[in-house]
């Protein structure tokens, strides 16, 4: 896998080297032997699918948690990064996607939070703070930002600049930027690149994480591709192409964990036409038929979960039509969606799916209380039967129905979140990342169940960030980007390269959906 030796720019010595980093979390091998290095004045891009290990890697470099094995070397000396402060002292600063600023405080206060200049007797030296801020602003030629502005009143782009200044005020020599352009306007992206180039000229090493290939070609010197926690390749940007990078990112063997059953595809169950819900659902049209599994691929932030929320009535549509089994319907709330035979398994089972303090029995019956309650009271025998059937059918490993659900493993929790909908005999299931963060065995079982459910005539709309899952499970694949469906592939046409390219927007001549 990782045979490709990390290439070295011979002219500049590495400022930061990462050697053979390994990290695993319970049940997940997040990083296995990742190495790469960044030279002074280099912009080094990290590229990989969701879950490839980029976030874990930058968290290790920024001292959020230590690696299990391997070392981080700064200026040729190994550094022991146990906490974020260790990284700061080593000259490493990280700018996360969610900016960590104090909205009520001024630009200067935010920049010097924690290391403000002192004026004796522990007093803050406000004048020095303001002057230093003005100097920093001038050094990056930022003229539309003043030291006294309150950060809460700034645009996202300006807030990001404050974070960058904050890093510089701590003499950071290595700057990690995690998807810095995700929330920026085009103009702000241009300005960000100007700043990155200035930092580069000063000798700052930048680790740049982005999904957007065009940005990588615009700003980075080298790019390292990660996949499934392993180092795949490091390339000079000048020597590679977008096609090659996509191939490196997704070029994984599709291990068919559970063979797809071919089932008879029936009448349309869900028909969506020109669905609108700003900002991330723009003119969506799609159809899911009985027995069909439609995969919805796209990058994080492409609007897939938002679309699911709109169909399920969490954020009701502002325009467009939804038909369920041919009937035009108006879905204004999840309760309405449930009554229409729609089930939704949310993306984050911990915060959106499972009621942790409740028992397995209670979680299983939660979406079907109306079916097992008579005169407002729950029939305990029906409930036990419902939950018992679910446990058996989904092979949930639990000591009893009275087990507190929060104590089960992730895979078993997910089976409950999925299983609770079946008591309702739904016609359509929307699954948002149905196998994220669960072990291989549980994953295979969930895939098997999806196949079975489809065979029984259920329509399934599956959102997944794992291409092998999308390609392995789907009868059809839709690709979303920036709130629109940008491509549709039949099962035969859907290759990793084609779907990957549509996700990244690498070329815009992908076929438009009618």
């Amino acid at each position, binding site marked *: 896998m990782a045979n490709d030796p990390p290439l070295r720019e011979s002219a500049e010595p590495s400022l930061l080297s990462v050697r053979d980093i390994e990290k695993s979390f319970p049940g997940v091998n997040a990083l296995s032997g990742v190495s790469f290095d960044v030279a002074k004045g280099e912009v080094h891009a990290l590229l990989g699918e969701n879950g490839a290990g980029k976030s874990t890697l930058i968290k290790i470099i920024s001292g959020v948690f230590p690696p299990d094995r391997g070392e981080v070397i700064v200026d040729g000396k190994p550094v022991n990064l146990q906490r974020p402060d260790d990284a700061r002292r080593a000259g490493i600063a990280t700018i996360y996607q969610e900016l960590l600023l104090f909205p009520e405080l001024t630009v200067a206060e935010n920049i010097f939070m924690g290391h403000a200049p002192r004026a004796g007797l522990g007093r803050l030296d406000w004048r020095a703070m303001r002057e230093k801020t003005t100097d920093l602003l001038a050094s990056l030629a930022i003229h539309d930002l003043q030291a006294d502005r309150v950060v809460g009143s700034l645009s996202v782009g300006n807030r990001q600049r404050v974070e960058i200044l904050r890093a510089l005020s701590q003499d950071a020599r290595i700057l990690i930027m995690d998807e810095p352009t995700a929330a920026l306007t085009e103009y702000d992206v241009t300005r960000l690149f100007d700043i990155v180039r200035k930092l580069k000229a000063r000798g700052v090493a930048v680790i740049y994480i982005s999904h957007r290939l065009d940005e990588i070609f615009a700003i980075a010197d080298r790019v390292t591709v990660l996949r499934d926690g392993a180092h795949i390749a490091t390339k000079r940007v000048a020597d590679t192409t977008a096609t090659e990078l996509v191939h490196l990112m997704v070029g994984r063997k599709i291990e068919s964990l559970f063979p797809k059953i071919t089932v008879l595809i029936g009448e349309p169950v869900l028909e969506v036409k020109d669905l609108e819900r700003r900002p991330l659902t723009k003119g969506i049209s799609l159809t899911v038929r009985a027995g069909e599994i439609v995969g919805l691929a796209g990058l994080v932030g492409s609007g897939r979960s938002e679309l699911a929320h709109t169909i399920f009535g969490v954020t009701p549509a502002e325009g467009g039509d939804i038909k369920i089994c041919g009937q035009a319907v108006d879905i204004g709330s*999840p*309760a309405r969606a449930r009554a229409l035979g729609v089930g*939704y398994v949310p993306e984050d089972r911990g915060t*959106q799916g499972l009621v*942790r303090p409740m028992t397995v029995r209670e979680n299983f019956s939660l979406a079907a209380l109306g079916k097992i309650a008579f005169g407002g009271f729950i029939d305990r025998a029906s409930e036990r039967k419902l939950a018992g059937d679910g*446990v058996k059918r989904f092979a949930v490993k639990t000591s009893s129905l009275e087990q507190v659900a929060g*104590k089960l493993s992730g895979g078993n929790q997910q089976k409950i979140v999925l299983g609770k909908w079946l008591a309702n005999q739904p016609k359509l299931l929307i699954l948002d990342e149905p196998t994220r963060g669960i072990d291989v065995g549980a994953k295979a079982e969930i895939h098997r169940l999806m196949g079975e459910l489809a065979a029984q005539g259920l329509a399934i709309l599956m959102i997944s960030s794992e291409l092998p899952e999308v390609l392995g499970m789907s009868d059809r694949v839709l690709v979303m980007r920036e709130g629109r469906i940008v491509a549709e592939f039949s099962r035969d046409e859907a290759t990793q390269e084609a779907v990957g390219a549509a996700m990244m927007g690498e070329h815009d001549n992908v076929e438009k959906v009618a």
Partner: protein
Amino acid sequence: MTAATFTRDEADPRRLLKALASQEALLAIAVIGLAIAVGLYNPRFLATRNLSDVLLGNAYIAVAAVGMSMVIISGNIDISVGSLIGVLATVSGTLAVNGAPIIVTWLVPLVVGVLVMAAQGAVIAYLRIPAIVVTLGMLSILKGGLISVTGGKWITDLPDSFHLANIELFDTVPMPVLLMIVATILAAVWMRHSATGRSIYAVGGNAEAARLCGISQPRTTVMVFALHGFFAGIAALLYATQLRVIQSTVPPNLELTIITASVVGGVSILGGVGTVIGSSLAAILIAEIASALVFTDVSPYWIRAVQGTLILITVIADILRRRRMAGA
């Protein structure tokens, strides 16, 4: 993948231990154990007269704690209930003194209690304002309003028929105690077996998950506050009728005592966990401790410190339990 996914063992001795370790069982043991211990020190503590006084004088706290427990289980809190009880008691007493039919004096507090609390629930649920802020506002309105309207004048000359404590079932169980037991049991059954009760646990345990299951959080919140208002109405009646006079003020720190009973009774302050039986038992335990202090010659002023200690112990135990669960 066999059907034998359960590893249940009916004869597991740990099950018995687990049942005994439940908050309700611990509280029941504490109530009885404390009575025996204090009785050994001072037998007068066990006199029927004293035990009955303890129950009669605190039944209203147990009843109010039932409603409070529902509110906390749903993920909310209410600090206006003490003031509301004061207002409802005064309203009821004023009606009684002015010759209103007894049934009216008993029903009005229930209706007003439900309306006031439902209104608060609606503000919390539909305007999405934190419960502590809304009920803090209501606390001041009720408390200030009460003292301004009555001028702090006591209500005396209450008709005899007004006093619930004079009514006894089979000549032994006084009405307040009966109401406390019935309210607790009905509420416990309802919370455990009704679909709405289940929704309350679900909303408190994970509001987002409940919403995505089609459970309406706003409706559940209004419902739970309305019920809480109903129990506050009963509590106000018990409070109003226990003495010959009504003081027209809010009993100091009453809301805190009620919240203490709920929390010590095992209701998680984070929502989603707890039972109303536990909170009634805890209300009795707290009252018993207060009485025990007197009978063991300890200054009764210690009762606040004891309450505080009980709260801290139960909350810490709850947090540790949750953390262990999250780690598992």
